[in-house]
């Protein structure tokens, strides 16, 4: 019995007892459940397993603290009305907002944060980490850490551009279909059906194989693939707004289609569209990451998370986790955005469950 194990169980039991004493049912269930699980884990995996559990719990606690602090910070700097909304945000959503904030900073200030250039060869291939290179070198001897920082700019930027393109295309078509109706509506609906019945990755691969892996091709391909989803949602949301009396009033006033879309329909359908934008971004980001993992995304030497995973994958067979870091960066951002979207959907739909 090492000191660590004794301390570990003492802490868990102390937390369980305190939670039980103060009638905090959920905390008690978690703490005591963890104690029981730890018995089994301790027998099977020994001290190492318990240490892993402790590290995970510590990380979770740290994440919770950071998200709590960040939420308080947001409440302080925003207006009273916004602050009230933010107060309802669960921890997960606050964590998501913090992650997005960090990525934005990383993307904008990449050249100042990164110690080396993204294509700068400074060491031998797969050189181990030292005080100069935090995460070691990649397969060509470039600094891994700098490339991950630059990746925030390139990968996220590309996904964002593609999402915006898909969104503009889909939302415009949806709003037009809702206001015009008739054959245009029918036709666009069928086009959306056809595009949505091809698996997205397959369609993207087909287009990239024909037009070659250039950035503008990726953006257009993704826009075409994901616009139908946006189209359907916009069409449904705007369809509910179009039948309202104030739209009829505006039509009788003699306003044009563009005015109707801009001043009457769009302001009344922003909430679901914003949530859809977040969701769409996740899909697009994963698709683009998948493409660049297959070597069809942003072309080297530009740093890009998906291709970095592929290029350094051989390190994994030596038990090195460096190639997993860019993949984790992708997952973290998607998880963060999803958490925020989850909260927004919950709020806007008024789901009680």
């Amino acid at each position, binding site marked *: 019995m090492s000191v660590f194990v004794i301390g570990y169980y003492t802490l868990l039991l102390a937390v369980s007892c305190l939670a039980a004493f103060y009638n905090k049912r*959920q905390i008690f*269930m*978690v703490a005591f459940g963890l104690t029981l699980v730890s018995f089994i884990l301790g027998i099977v995996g020994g001290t190492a397993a318990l240490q892993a559990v402790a590290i995970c719990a510590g990380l979770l606690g740290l994440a919770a603290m950071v998200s709590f602090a960040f939420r308080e910070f947001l409440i302080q700097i925003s207006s009273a009305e916004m602050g009230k909304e933010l107060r309802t945000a669960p921890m*997960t959503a606050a964590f998501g907002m913090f992650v997005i904030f960090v990525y934005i900073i990383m993307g904008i200030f990449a050249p100042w944060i990164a110690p080396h250039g993204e294509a700068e060869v400074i060491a031998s291939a797969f050189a181990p980490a030292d005080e100069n290179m935090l995460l070691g070198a990649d397969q060509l001897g470039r600094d891994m850490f700098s490339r991950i920082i630059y990746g925030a700019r390139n990968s996220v930027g590309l996904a964002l551009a593609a999402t915006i393109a898909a969104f503009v295309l889909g939302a415009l078509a949806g709003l037009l279909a809702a206001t015009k109706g008739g054959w245009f509506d029918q036709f666009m609906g069928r086009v959306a*059906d*056809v595009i949505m*019945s*091809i*698996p*997205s*990755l*397959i*369609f993207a*691969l*087909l*287009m*990239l*194989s*024909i*037009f070659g892996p250039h950035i503008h091709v990726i953006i257009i391909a993704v826009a075409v693939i994901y616009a139908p989803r946006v189209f359907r949602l916009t069409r449904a949301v705007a369809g509910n707004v179009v039948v309202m009396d104030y739209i009829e009033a505006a039509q009788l006033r003699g306003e044009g289609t563009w005015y109707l879309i801009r001043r009457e329909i769009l302001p009344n359908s922003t909430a679901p569209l914003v949530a859809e934008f977040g969701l769409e971004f*996740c899909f697009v980001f*994963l698709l683009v*990451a*998948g493409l660049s*993992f*297959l*070597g*069809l995304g942003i072309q080297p030497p530009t740093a890009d998370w*998906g291709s970095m*995973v*592929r290029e350094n*994958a051989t390190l*994994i*067979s*030596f*038990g090195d*986790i460096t*190639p*997993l870091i860019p*993949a*984790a960066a*992708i*997952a973290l951002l*998607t*998880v963060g*955005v*999803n*958490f925020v979207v*989850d909260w927004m959907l919950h709020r806007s739909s008024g789901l009680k*469950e």
Partner: protein
Amino acid sequence: MGDILGLIGKRLGLGVFILFVISIIIFFMVELLPGDIAQAVLGQGATEENLAALRKQMGLDQPALVRYGEWLAGAVTLDFGSSIVTGERVTTVIGERFMNTLFLAAYAAVIAVPVAIILGVIVALLRNSIFDRVANVVTLSFISSPEFFLGYILILFFAVKWQMFPAISSLSEGMSLGELLIRTFLPALTLVLVVMAHMMRMTRAAIINLLASPYIEMAKLKGAPPWKVIVKHALPNAWAPIINVVALNLAYLITGVVLVEVVFVYPGIGQALVDAVSKRDFPIVQACCLIFAATFILLNLAADVGAILTNPRLRHPK
């Protein structure tokens, strides 16, 4: 009964029509190629005679509509022409790989479907408890992770650190089923994790939706025991959404399989597609795309037909 058959027939007809439109898209997108296929194969430095000879050999001197007709007629009989790069028949290149991919997808589905549905129902019954919250966060994380991230984490732990399963699924002739299952365990597990998360969330939403309906409340109010409420009142109505969930996720497997096959170097059709894309081997790309799209449409069709068959309200449309 006539109504259902009509409804299903209409749905099937729509599926066939969409597949036809997709075959047009797949075929004519290659026509959009700057220059043509012969130019793309031989490169910019090719002489006029070489180009003309290749065009003649591939039948490119005929109008596009005629070639499309021939390609479609071939595709219906599973003959997709021959590869540009190696000259092999596309069917021989793809055939065996397609079976491998189907095997992998079936392996993943057999594990994922029952587990996900049972867990989804449990989570729905325990909704708003701490387990539900944890399950929500965990499934959301799995959905948000790229497939290759999960795949490499599994390789790191199961193959490198604990050496329980092989990292690369090399298949060979005459392997016993047990060995086959062990070799393909990690790719299957990766697919299971992703699909299970999707399926759990969808099952949970469907069940919660159902439990909110008035007849469930009625059953509770008249004093039926909880298990009876679930088994007699909720379950018969839950089949439609559950069948829908399963079919949609199997369709999702089709896309997920491409990345997973590349991570584990699994000899499947997804790997063939990616190779062909980087070599610009268009007949193989077209064939793979058509097969993937057809499977995808077929599963979506199955979802719709299943929903029609199990939903009494759709069975008797007003």
